[in-house]
């Protein structure tokens, strides 16, 4: 249990933070903007594929065929001259052009349809081709009145499909807690030292453990409050759903906060100036932004990077939080992440207590 002094000092730190409106605003502003932008950018279904159709045939069959394509929600069809559509394809306004030959009618056997694509622009060509083929086959069947032998019925087993925002939220939470924690211990300590506050405290009977405990208590409350605001915004405004247990989710948040506070104490003890702590801090923060699977899954990174990325503290924290939020995982089922978090917990704590020596840090 924290002592009376520790609680009082923590309440003073909390007060200092709460009175600093500007930094509260900015620490909430960034994640909220991020979430909102991604919720708009990614709200709809897959966009229909833009297909230009050049109808060189005067037959009714060709016109009906084009009409069937237009009616298909998978395609956004423009009918026009080959010359114009080719230009549009090069401009990137069309994804592909389908050319119906002159001989395209019910009597023709195996008329050749020509498909023009700009391969450089169509990364998903492999995905579109089977889709197109499938559609052509079903259209053909309709013309020839053949009953299909099989039909595929797709059923969505998840009540709701996962949006990018659902993926992003836990990572963004983990990132925010890292920022708040490292700033709370590391950057603050350097600032207190510069002002001579640490020295002033050191000539009073306060022990380093009182000081550290107070900062941890205050920051823990700040992180919990800020993340709760962000989660509430995500859940109530952006309709993000957290499937797992909130208690598990918050325990990971608290463990992560503790790890990054300890790492912050290490930074603050090593770096002697504000510039130095910024530089060293960025060295810790930046690689983790890109490597810890916050914005995209670690699995999509180059294979060479993955082993490094996976053992970063933020990776363990964000993966655990994502498993709980997106898949409703229990603490037991995310053992590997928990073990990683535990190892970092011990490493960070031991390092911090070794490096944060009152006499050294204060002077």
């Amino acid at each position: 249990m924290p002592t009376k002094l520790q609680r009082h000092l923590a309440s003073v730190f909390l007060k200092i933070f709460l009175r600093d409106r500007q930094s509260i605003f900015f620490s909430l502003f960034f994640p909220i903007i991020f979430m909102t932008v991604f919720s708009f950018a990614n709200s709809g279904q897959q966009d229909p594929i833009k297909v230009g159709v050049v109808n060189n045939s005067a037959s009714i069959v060709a016109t009906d065929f084009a009409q069937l394509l237009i009616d298909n929600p998978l395609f956004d069809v423009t009918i026009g001259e080959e010359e114009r559509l080719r230009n549009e394809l090069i401009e990137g306004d069309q994804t592909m052009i389908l050319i119906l030959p002159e001989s395209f009618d019910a009597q023709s056997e195996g008329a050749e349809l020509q498909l023009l694509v700009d391969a450089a622009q169509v990364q998903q060509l492999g995905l579109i081709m089977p889709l197109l083929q499938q559609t052509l086959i079903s259209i053909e069947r309709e013309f020839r009145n053949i009953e299909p032998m099989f039909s595929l019925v797709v059923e969505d087993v998840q009540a709701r499909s996962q949006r990018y925002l659902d993926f992003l939220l836990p990572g963004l939470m983990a990132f925010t807690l890292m920022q708040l924690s490292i700033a709370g211990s590391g950057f603050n300590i350097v600032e207190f030292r510069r002002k001579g506050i640490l020295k002033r405290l050191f000539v009073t009977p306060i022990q380093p453990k009182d000081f550290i405990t107070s900062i941890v208590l205050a920051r823990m409350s700040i992180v919990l409050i800020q993340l709760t605001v962000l989660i509430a915004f995500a859940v109530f405004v952006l309709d993000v759903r957290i499937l797992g247990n909130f208690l598990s989710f918050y325990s990971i948040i608290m463990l992560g906060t503790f790890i990054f506070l300890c790492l912050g104490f290490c930074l603050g003890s090593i770096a002697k100036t504000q510039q130095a702590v910024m530089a060293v801090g960025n060295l810790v923060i930046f690689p983790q932004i890109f490597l810890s699977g916050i914005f995209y899954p670690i699995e999509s990174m180059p294979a060479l990077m993955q082993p490094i990325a996976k053992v970063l503290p933020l990776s363990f924290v964000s993966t655990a939080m994502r498993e709980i939020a997106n898949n409703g995982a229990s603490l037991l089922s995310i053992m590997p992440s928990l073990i990683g978090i535990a190892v970092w917990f011990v490493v960070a704590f031991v390092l911090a207590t070794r490096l944060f020596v009152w006499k050294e840090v204060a002077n």
Partner: protein
Amino acid sequence: MAIIEVENLVKKYPLPDNKSETFFAVEGISLSIEAGEIYGILGPNGAGKTTTLEMLEGLIDIDGGTAFIDGIDVSANPYKVKEIIGVQLQANEYFDNVSLVELLILFGKLYSREIDAENLLNKVNLLDKAKAKPDDLSGGQKQRFSIACALVNDPKVLFLDEPTTGLDPQAKRNLWDLVLELNGLGMTIVLTTHNMEEAETLCQRIAIMDHGKVVAEDTPQELILKHAAEPPTAPLHGNIEDVFLALTGHGLRD
């Protein structure tokens, strides 16, 4: 009775440009400061004044010799010493966004005391600034507030490191009155200063330090009699500044 007993105190650092050589910031000084006196430590920049105070306050390690405050060994029991001393440092900045009253209450808690913040502010003439933030204070007010912070534990010894540096004459006189008033209540006060008038006005005894050593120690009057070069035209002896220059020379220090 001496409340501070210092014997052969040593502080050494490796030279910045030559790590194998050591530099003595304080080289074997001995002091005996009586309970209830105002004791001044004078010296050019780099003489070792602040280093000496910081060793007595437990801020830095003592590399040699002994220091006792009120019978407590500073090296062995730094936390016991911290309970009975009050310290005003040269840097006097505090946490942002916290009022004077809140800061004083916080300092009280550091000594596990519930204090009467208004009463303390009244003592240093800052009662009307109770709700102000330290950043809103003038230089003189800041120094008085620093002293208020140093008084939260009713210290037996008050250390003041250059308390009037940078203050205008009014603020300086005001601070002197405060120091004399506290001393009148029986508090032992140890201060460093560059202001000779201050040393002469406030201090019952003075030690002059140079190159980490005490070069002279006595009452201001005795020092003037012994060391001040007698100006040929002046009917009286010189002042403490003449003593200071006679003992430490005219060379500029950095």
